[in-house]
Every structure is written in structure tokens, then in C-alpha cells.
């Protein structure tokens, strides 16, 4: 059981944990030297880390509402930063981001800017004020600020739509990794992933999730950075890749010039397995229009500031001041991974396409490439493919195809790193996907148990009963997510981006104006949430069914349309109806001042 002094001992506890994990990596590499098989190493990595998370989840069990919902509001800034970073960086960030940069270059990097810039909005517009408010959930703020059950309910609806879209992708990712590492079919692996996720959150709620997320951050950041530094050093590209890859970036541009981007015919492309792509876009050149870049970045930034699973992490800090600082730490820890992804993409691409490097395959004969061990492995895993389209027997740039995930998963092997690194990467990807899934499932279950069940249906329910309801919902939502994940409707990244658009359509302006515009009232908030979500979703459906769209707003940025409708609806309706009562206006005044009691009591 975690005692009060656990908080004071945090640096020591996680220091020992980090040392223990590094020791485990060393033991595994010795075991590899002694002949342990690749498969056993993979199983050890995933099983060992998941077991640790489960133990932390068990030790964090609680029967108190404020520990279950907001970790007792005593998480120190730096640790909350790590937990938020793990909460934030999903399986997609970990496994797919470097691949996206690899294939799409500049146009994709709008996501890097968007997924970091959003934190400036979180820190300045929302987090400190919502912390002062003292709410348990995001709909708790909406419901109290605007009043009425309908506002609370609509906020829960938007939250559920956005978070559920997101969580299926995360459970899918845990399933993919578990199925590869443990060598079991995907349909079962999804549920193995789900059980691991629930082990972290079920007993301890937010408290359990917080301390497992810190542990998961440590695993995922080691698993991402170690290979990047190692590969860079091995290739002789520089001992600190972030500052030293300018020559490599320039070399890729030179090779792109030399090879040229040859377009493949439709018949040829039909032979390429589904999900694989070739290199068709420049690596470092600007290849998107300003609006395409900016609109995507803007949608991701506003979405970041509206996603409840991120916002609720700042409800756990001891003070308003700490909430602000904690946002800074969150972004710092995110920055460590995000700034490394482009470096990994650069190293990965150069090692494959530069004919002067021993790992380069472009320009070699097709037969030679097909005989390489790692090519055969990844071809079998359906992540790599070559074909001699022009029949000259030599592999050209346009004849090489790879899956996005392969950049993270396969590069260590291609660069000749020991298998222990691949096991480590699997554990990191699992940690990234699990931590995000936990945050999301908890956000949905908490909103329904606290806002719908306790605040609307049965306000007299006792704490014990509330927490039973919360836990049952956690399991139900988890299973629903896993069942949909098993159907694989949209790729990992597509549904992640949709979640941001849904969240910004329905929640961005109701949240921001709740603090910054005293005149905003209940009717306005209802109109803003309902019309925002409906118009955003409508636009998505329209574009998905062949609609042409307008103003360059695509299915990835539909939130820009949804949130614009939300803003207009909210302002117009608020001004047409009467202003909020004096009591509500006084409440807004109090939220704006950091000192003094929170608006909602400690137990509510």
C-alpha cells in the first residue's frame, strides 16, 4: 500500500526502477549472447514490463473517491509531466510517427508542430483554471460552470465520441505488439492487451494509472532513444544525432535528385501488398502548401487542448501553480521523443537508399536484396516488398516498399543491432499504447460514472457504490473498445487524428469561453457543443462519401469546420439569451484567481 511518504520517496523509487530496467536489458543481452532465442527475448521483455505495471496497479488500489478520480491531488509537477507524456504519446506516436515522417516528409511534420504547440494553449487557456475549479472530470467543469444536466450530458457525449475513437486504435496497437511478441493470433492478443490495460487502472483508478504511466514513460523513452543513438553512432553519423545529421539530410536530398521520383503505373502498384508505401516525397523539402500544413497543425493544437484524458492529468497536481509548471514538464518529456522521430526517419532512410553504405539496397540486384535475412523476415511480416517493375534486374527507388511501422521496428535490425533492442522496442511500443489506452478508458468511465451516474442519476450514492460503478464501466468500455479494435476499421493513425477533430469540434470553445468569456451561458454552451459535434461529424461523413469539401478542409482537419460552427453558435445563442446569473459570474471570477478554495469541494 502506498503510504503518505511515498510521494517524498518518488525520485528514489523510480530511480531504482530505472536502474532495475537497465539491468534487465543488460541481463537480456547477456542471455542473447548465450544463445537465448529472439522469440524468448521478446516474450521476456513484454511479460516482465507488463508484470511490473500490474504490481504498481495493485499497490495503488484505493477505496477513496478523490484518490480514484484525481490521485488524491498530490502528484508532483515533474512526475505528472512524465505521466502526461506517457498518457499523450500513443502507440501511434511510438510506432507510426517516424514512419509517417519517412514517407510523407514536411506535410506530415505538421503533426509534430500541432501535437506540441497545443500544450501552449493547455497551459495558458485552460489547465490552471480547471485545476482551480477542483473538478474530477472535464464534463464536471462544463456542468457546473454552465449549469444543468443537459450541458453535463452533452460534454460526456463529446468526450465519449472523441476518446472512444482514439482508444480503439490504442487497443489495436497493444494487440498488434502482443501478437508479434507473444506469437499468438491477433483476435486473442487484443484481449491480452486489454487485460494488461485493466490491471493498471481497475483497482487504483487515477492513482494507479498515474504511477504506472510514470513507469511506462521510463520504458518507452529508453526504448526510443537508445536505438536512435546507437544506430547513429554505428553508422558514423554522429554521437548526438539531433545536432549532427545535417550532412545526412543533405545526402538524402542529393540521392533523391539522383534517383528521381518515378511514378509507378496502376497495374504495378496493384501488386504491392496493402498498407505498404514507397518513397515518393522529398525528405526535407517543403512539399505541402502553407494552408495544408497550417490547417493540420491548427486542428491538432486545438484538439490537444480539448482532449479530456490530457486535461484530467492536470487535476492531479497539488496546486494551480503546479498545474502550469506541470504542462511545461509534460511538453519537455514529449519533446524528447518527438524531436528524435525525424532523426530516426533520416537514419532509417539513408541506411536503406545510400548505395555507398553496406546496408543500402537501392542499386543492388533484386535477387541479392531478396536473399538478405532481414528482408525475408520483414517481407514475411508483410512490412517490406520489392519488385522489378522495369525488368532491369536492379532495385530502383520506386521499386522498394515498406510499411510505416517498419521504420521503428525494423531499422535496429537493418543497422545490425542485437535482437535485444528489438525486444526493447516491443516493450516500449506496448508501454506507449497501454498508457494512452488507460488514460482514455479511465476518462470515459470516470465521466460516465461521475457525471452521468452520480451527478444525474443517483446523487445520493455512497462512495463504495460509486467506485463499483466506475470499475464496472471501466471493464465494459474496455471490452467494447477491444471488440471494435478487433474489427480494424481504420488504420492506427487515421482514427487518432479523428479523435482530435471530434474533441475540438465539441469541446474547445465551450471550455475556453467558460473561463475567458463571462457572458457565455448555458444555452450558448448547449448550442456550441451540439452543433459543433454534429457539423464536424457531418462534414467527415460527407467527405468520406465522396464530398468535395471546401476551403481545403479534409477528413483529417474537419474539426476546423466543426469548431468554427461551435464558436459562432455559442456566441450568437449566448448573446440572444439572458446573461448568466450573478452567482455564476462570481464563480468565474473566483476561478480566475489562483488562491483560495476550489469551487467544488474536496469530496463531491
Amino acid at each position, binding site marked *: 500500500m502506498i503510504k503518505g511518504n511515498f510521494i517524498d520517496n518518488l525520485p528514489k523509487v523510480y530511480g531504482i526502477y530505472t536502474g532495475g530496467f537497465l539491468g534487465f536489458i543488460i541481463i537480456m543481452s547477456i542471455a542473447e549472447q548465450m544463445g537465448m532465442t529472439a522469440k524468448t527475448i521478446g516474450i521476456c521483455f513484454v511479460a516482465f514490463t507488463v508484470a511490473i505495471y500490474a504490481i504498481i496497479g495493485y499497490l495503488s488500489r484505493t477505496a477513496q473517491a478523490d484518490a480514484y478520480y484525481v490521485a488524491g491531488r498530490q502528484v508532483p509537477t515533474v512526475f505528472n509531466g512524465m505521466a502526461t507524456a506517457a498518457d499523450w504519446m500513443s502507440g501511434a506516436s511510438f510506432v507510426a510517427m517516424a514512419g509517417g515522417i519517412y514517407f510523407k516528409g514536411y506535410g506530415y511534420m505538421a503533426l509534430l*508542430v500541432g501535437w506540441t504547440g497545443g500544450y501552449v494553449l493547455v*497551459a495558458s487557456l485552460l489547465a490552471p483554471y480547471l485545476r482551480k475549479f477542483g473538478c474530477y472530470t472535464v464534463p464536471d467543469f462544463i456542468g457546473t460552470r454552465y449549469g444543468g444536466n443537459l450541458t453535463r450530458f452533452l460534454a460526456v457525449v463529446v468526450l465519449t465520441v472523441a476518446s472512444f475513437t482514439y482508444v480503439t486504435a490504442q487497443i489495436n496497437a497493444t494487440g498488434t505488439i502482443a501478437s508479434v511478441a507473444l506469437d499468438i493470433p491477433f483476435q486473442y492478443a487484443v484481449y491480452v492487451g486489454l487485460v494488461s490495460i485493466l490491471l493498471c487502472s481497475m483497482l487504483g483508478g487515477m492513482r494507479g494509472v498515474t504511477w504506472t504511466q510514470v513507469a511506462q514513460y521510463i520504458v518507452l523513452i529508453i526504448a526510443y532513444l537508445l536505438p536512435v543513438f546507437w544506430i547513429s553512432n554505428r553508422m558514423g553519423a554522429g554521437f548526438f544525432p539531433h545536432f549532427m545529421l545535417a550532412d545526412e539530410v*543533405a545526402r538524402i536530398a542529393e540521392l533523391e535528385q539522383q534517383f528521381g521520383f518515378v511514378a509507378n503505373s496502376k497495374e504495378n502498384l496493384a501488386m504491392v501488398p496493402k498498407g505498404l508505401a514507397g518513397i515518393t516525397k522529398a525528405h*526535407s523539402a517543403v512539399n505541402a502548401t502553407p494552408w495544408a500544413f*497550417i490547417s493540420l497543425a491548427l486542428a491538432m493544437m486545438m484538439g490537444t487542448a480539448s482532449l479530456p484524458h490530457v486535461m484530467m492529468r492536470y487535476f492531479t497536481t497539488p496546486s494551480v501553480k503546479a498545474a502550469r*509548471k506541470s504542462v511545461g514538464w509534460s511538453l519537455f518529456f514529449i519533446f524528447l521523443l518527438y*524531436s528524435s522521430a525525424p*532523426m530516426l526517419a533520416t537514419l532509417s532512410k539513408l541506411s536503406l537508399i545510400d548505395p555507398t553504405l553496406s546496408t543500402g539496397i537501392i542499386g543492388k540486384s533484386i535477387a541479392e536484396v531478396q536473399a538478405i535475412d532481414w528482408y525475408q523476415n520483414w517481407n514475411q511480416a508483410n512490412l517490406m516488398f520489392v519488385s522489378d517493375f522495369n525488368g532491369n534486374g536492379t532495385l530502383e527507388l520506386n521499386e522498394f516498399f515498406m510499411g510505416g511501422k517498419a521504420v521503428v521496428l525494423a531499422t535496429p535490425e537493418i543497422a545490425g543491432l542485437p535482437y535485444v533492442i528489438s525486444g526493447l522496442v516491443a516493450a516500449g511500443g506496448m508501454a506507449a499504447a497501454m498508457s494512452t489506452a488507460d488514460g482514455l478508458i479511465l476518462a470515459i468511465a470516470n465521466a460516465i460514472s461521475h457525471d452521468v451516474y452520480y451527478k444525474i442519476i443517483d446523487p445520493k450514492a455512497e462512495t463504495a457504490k460509486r467506485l463499483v460503478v466506475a470499475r464496472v464501466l471501466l471493464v465494459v468500455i474496455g471490452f467494447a473498445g477491444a471488440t471494435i479494435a478487433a474489427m480494424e476499421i481504420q488504420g492506427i493513425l487515421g482514427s487518432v487524428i479523428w479523435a482530435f477533430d471530434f474533441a475540438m469540434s465539441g469541446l474547445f470553445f465551450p471550455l475556453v469561453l467558460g473561463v475567458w468569456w463571462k457572458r457565455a451561458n448555458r444555452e450558448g454552451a448547449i448550442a456550441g457543443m451540439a452543433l459543433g459535434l454534429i457539423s464536424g461529424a457531418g462534414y467527415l461523413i460527407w467527405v468520406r462519401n465522396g464530398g468535395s469539401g471546401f476551403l481545403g478542409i479534409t477528413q483529417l482537419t474537419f474539426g476546423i469546420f466543426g469548431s468554427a460552427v461551435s464558436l459562432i453558435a455559442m456566441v450568437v445563442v449566448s448573446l440572444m439569451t439572458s446573461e448568466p446569473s450573478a452567482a455564476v459570474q462570481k464563480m468565474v471570477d473566483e476561478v480566475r484567481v489562483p*488562491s483560495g478554495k476550489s469551487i467544488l469541494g474536496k469530496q463531491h
Partner: protein
Amino acid sequence: MSKQAQHWEKTRGLLIMTLAIWFVFSIGIFLFGAEMNEVTGPFGYPLTYWFTCQGSLGIFVILIFWFANRQEKIDEEFGFSERGDD
């Protein structure tokens, strides 16, 4: 003007300044992405490329800490800072 109103006015001023800096590095510079990429940026990377993979991201981190410190000063000035730990 009451103490609270003055506090809020300063807070709003800080917000506008923070959002202005945020706007420049998240949106403003990318209006000129193609032109800027011709310039060599820090560590020898093309400038726009550098901003997308390190520059803007790092500036956001610094901006948030700067904002948090300024806001704390404003809160102290009006006696609204919280007592106790953080």
C-alpha cells in the same frame, strides 16, 4: 479598479503575449515555409525543416515555462499566490 480586475487585466495581457509568440512559431513562419527552407538553419539543417523537427517544439517548451513564471509573478504582485507546497 478593484485588485481582482487589475489582476485579470495583467493576466489577459500575458495571455495575449503568450498566444502571439505561439502564433508566430506554430503558424506564422509556416506561411513562408518554402522560402525559409532555402536558408541554412541551426546545426546546418534547412531552416523550415529544423523548425518542424526541433525549433518550434523547443520554443514551445521554453514558452510554457516562461509563461508559468510570469503568471506566478503577477499572482504574487496582487497577493493571489497560493500558500504551501507545489
